[in-house]
Structure formats: C-alpha cells, structure tokens
C-alpha cells in the first residue's frame, strides 16, 4: 500500500492542517508517513499546498510528481495539480468554489460542496474536514475513527472545543459518498 496525496488551496483554507491530520493518523496506525509543505511567499496568501505520503513501506521520495489523489479547495489549485494526477487516480474538488469541469476522463472526479456543508454546520473553516471525510470515503487509507481521535492530539488544547464540529464535518464528507 502506498498513497500519495497533494492537498492545495488558498492560505487559510486549512490544507496544511488537513495534511497534518491525515499524516498523524497514518503514523498512529503504524504506517510510514511524510508531510511536505510548500513554503515561501506562498505562505503569505496565494495558494498553499502539501504532499502527504502514507505507505506500508519506507517512503523514498517525500515529493510526488504523480499523486494518487489531489484534494483541491480552489480553482488555481485544480489548474495546477489536475494534470499530474496518476491515471486511475482521483480528484476531490471543492465544488462550492470550483465550477469548472475537469478536462480528464482517466481519473475519478469527486465533487464536494465543502463550503456549503461547512456553512450548514455553522463554521466555514471546517470545509477542509468535509473534504477529508469525502477522501476517506473514497479511499480508507486510514480509519475514520483514527482521524477523529487524532484531532485530540493535533489540535492545541485551546481549540478542543472545536473537535465536535470537525468530527461532524468529517462525517458529512463521508456521507456524501455513501
């Protein structure tokens, strides 16, 4: 088993923490994991991205030129990463902000109205968790329970009040595909 995922979006859409949460959950399940962020001027607004690799074997390159999946939160990210997704891979896109059709027929396209669902839950910021839930329903690379439990460790104590709404967002994302 080896899964390479790139997640990308505007700064503030939570793609980095989405990646960290997934990486942490992979580690908790005993997998080999790596998380590589983009860094530099991209941190100050614009598009941020990170690459997460979860594998049953030692991870050679921590970078991914042909990801198995991308989770994209905005249009510039879709344009940037859609062409490199592996044939047979998946594109999970935030359909609340992206209404462009993807010009590929060799990958699975999963449209997730992440902002809309997050708003229904009462906090736009959990859109990233809706995306993660949808991704986990697409490919159960780690267990949903592990991710939910990981929130406890990854969130600082002062943010623990936000764990329930993040867990609901994960569930809503999962439900979309089931």
């Amino acid at each position, binding site marked *: 088993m080896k899964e390479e995922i790139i997640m990308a979006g505007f700064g503030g859409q939570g793609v980095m923490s989405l990646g*960290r949460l997934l*990486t*942490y959950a992979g*580690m908790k399940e005993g997998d*080999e*994991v*790596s*998380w*590589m*962020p983009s*860094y*530099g001027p991209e941190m100050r607004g614009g598009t941020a991205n990170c690459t997460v690799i979860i594998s049953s074997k030692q*991870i*050679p*390159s*921590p*970078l991914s*030129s042909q990801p198995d999946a991308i989770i994209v939160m905005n249009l510039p990210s879709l344009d940037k990463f859609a062409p490199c997704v592996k044939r047979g891979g998946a594109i999970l896109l935030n359909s609340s902000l992206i209404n462009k059709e993807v010009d590929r027929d060799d990958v699975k396209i999963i449209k997730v109205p992440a902002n809309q669902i997050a708003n229904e839950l009462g906090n736009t910021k959990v859109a990233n968790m809706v995306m993660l839930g949808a991704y986990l329903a697409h490919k159960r690379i780690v267990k949903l329970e592990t991710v939910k439990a990981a929130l406890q460790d990854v969130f600082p104590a002062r943010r623990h009040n936000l764990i329930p709404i993040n867990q609901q967002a994960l569930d809503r994302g999962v439900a979309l595909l089931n």
Partner: protein
Amino acid sequence: MAEKVLMKGNEAIAEAAIKAGCRYFFGYPITPQNELPEYMSRRLPEVGGVFLQAESEVAASNMVYGAAGAGARVLTSSSSPGISLKMEGISYIAGAELPAVIVNIMRGGPGLGGIQSSQADYFQATKGGGHGDFRLCVLAPSTVQEAVDLTMEAFEIADRYRNPVMVLGDGIIGQMMEPVQFNKEIDPADLPKKEWATDGARGRPRNIINSLALDPQDLENHNLVLKAKYEQMKEQEVRYATYLLDDADRAIVAYGTTARIATSAIEMAREQGIRVGLIRPISLFPFPEKVIAEAANRLDSFLTVEMSLGQMVEDVRLAVNGKKPVFFYGRTAGMVPSPEEILEQIILMGGGGE
C-alpha cells in the same frame, strides 16, 4: 523505545540538540530554517538553557565560539547566505579546536539566491568553507529521524575531536514532517568536564582559547595537528548506506533528499529489469571513498545526482579514480530532480552515457 511523534525536520533537529545536552543556541533568522531557532526560543528556557537572537550571523557564530570555549555544548543554525557569514566564527572555532554544531538547511544560491531546497553548499561545507586549512565533519541526513540521530551524534563527534561538525540538510529535510523517536536524553551535568575550557583559572594554570600563531613553524605544526584529526575522522567517522547494490551493474551516488528521490527512480528502473543500486554518503566529510572505490572494481558506471550543478561528483570521480565512467545529473536553484528525470539518466548511463 520512545513514542513516535510527528515533527518538522527543523524542530526535530532542535529537540535532538536539547536531548544531546545542548543548552545554548545563538542564531539569526533566515528561511528555510526559522522553525529551528523558534523552537529553541520556546524550549531552551524550559530546560534552563539560553536562546539568544544575535544581531547578525557573524555575531552569532562568534557567540558560539565564546560558549564553546567556555565549555558548553552549543548550537547555531542557518541557511546558505547566513552560513557564509558564519564562516568567520567557524574558521576560528576550527582553528582554536573547539567543539560546536552548525546546522545548514541549504537554499538556492549564489548571492541571495532563493529559498527553495538546494545542495549547492557541498563545496563550502566539505572543503573547509572559511579561510585556512581546516575541515568540518559534515553529516547529511535524508530523513527527519536521521536528522535527529545525526544531530545527537554531531555533538559527540564535536566533543571527541574538538572540531566543529555541520549537519547539512536541504530545505526539504528542514520543512518536511515525519515521525521521529528520541531514544536517548543526555543531562549536560553528566557530561565530562572540559579541562581546557575558559571557566576561570581556579586552582589550576590558566586556559587559553586561541587560533593565533605568528611563528609560521608553530602554525604549520598546529595545522598538522588538525590534519591528524581529519585523518583520524577518515578512519573512524565514515558513514554511508547502500541500497540494492549487491546485484547491481551500475550505481547512483546521492545524498540527503536527492538520495530518496533517486531511490524512487531505482525502484522504477528495477521494474524495467535494470540492475541499478544506490550509494548514499551520510558523512560527506569524511567522504565514503572506500566503498565507492571498491564498487568501481565491480560496477560498470556511476551516476551522481545532486541538487547542484555538480559538486559531490568531484569527490565521486576522485574515489572512482578513472576506473569507470562517472556521469552527473543535477537540478539546482531550488529545482528538484524528479524520479522520472533520474530514470532517464539511469537508462542513458547503461548505453554508454554521454
């Protein structure tokens, strides 16, 4: 075994230094290593240590020189342009035979260059870097765990040889997160006392920390003492790893993150039936020349891959010593070679290369 934690390379190196008994850090901000001093500024006060943000890299390296002379385990970190400035202090530290650990999280150059990952400081790190006839022991991790392990070892090597040791990582090593374990923790109080340190000449003859010798014969003698240490390092501190080398007919030589990307390329090549292996230098000085020289008796060709336009390849060629062709492939200035690009080169080298 300690519990696994997920950490950024920069932060993991910082924690490893603390676990190695380091309680003093002097630095100056520069991307992409800022998480390291930031982490130290939080953690060192918790363990009774001192974090000090210096007015410049030049000052920081001289504070390290002072603290090392005073007998402490001390760390500084920077990235390429900052390391150039720190070379003043580093040369003095080497000349005065003091132990210190320097971390360079390399970025693209020359000049201000860029902030993306690079390996273009290989020459600077391994050939002395500052003025005078000196060498650093240089350790190049390729995973965050290895960055932790080598940082802890760096302090031991520095103390053993009374010589500065550099942990040479690229921007990717500094920025990425991987699980790490800290299996050892040293209390600085348990470290042996450094009898040569300047801590006040109480009841003993005075100690002098110095790199000045105006008589050229004295200075040559001093340089020969330094050289003997470097020779001893060559005997005792060579570190490397190999991958799929036993049945290989050709090998890639690469270090740091590039070695991991090369591993991906090797796996792709193996699927095509190409018998390629990897030699990964972990200590860049002392350079693992013996393993390469031995491999040159057996293999048909070598390919050095670097995030530079060809620096380590010179050491590989010296080790191969004309016995077999040594090819080079590099991307630089923050561009990272892809496994596909390297695969192409692996195929080319089999056909006789350039």
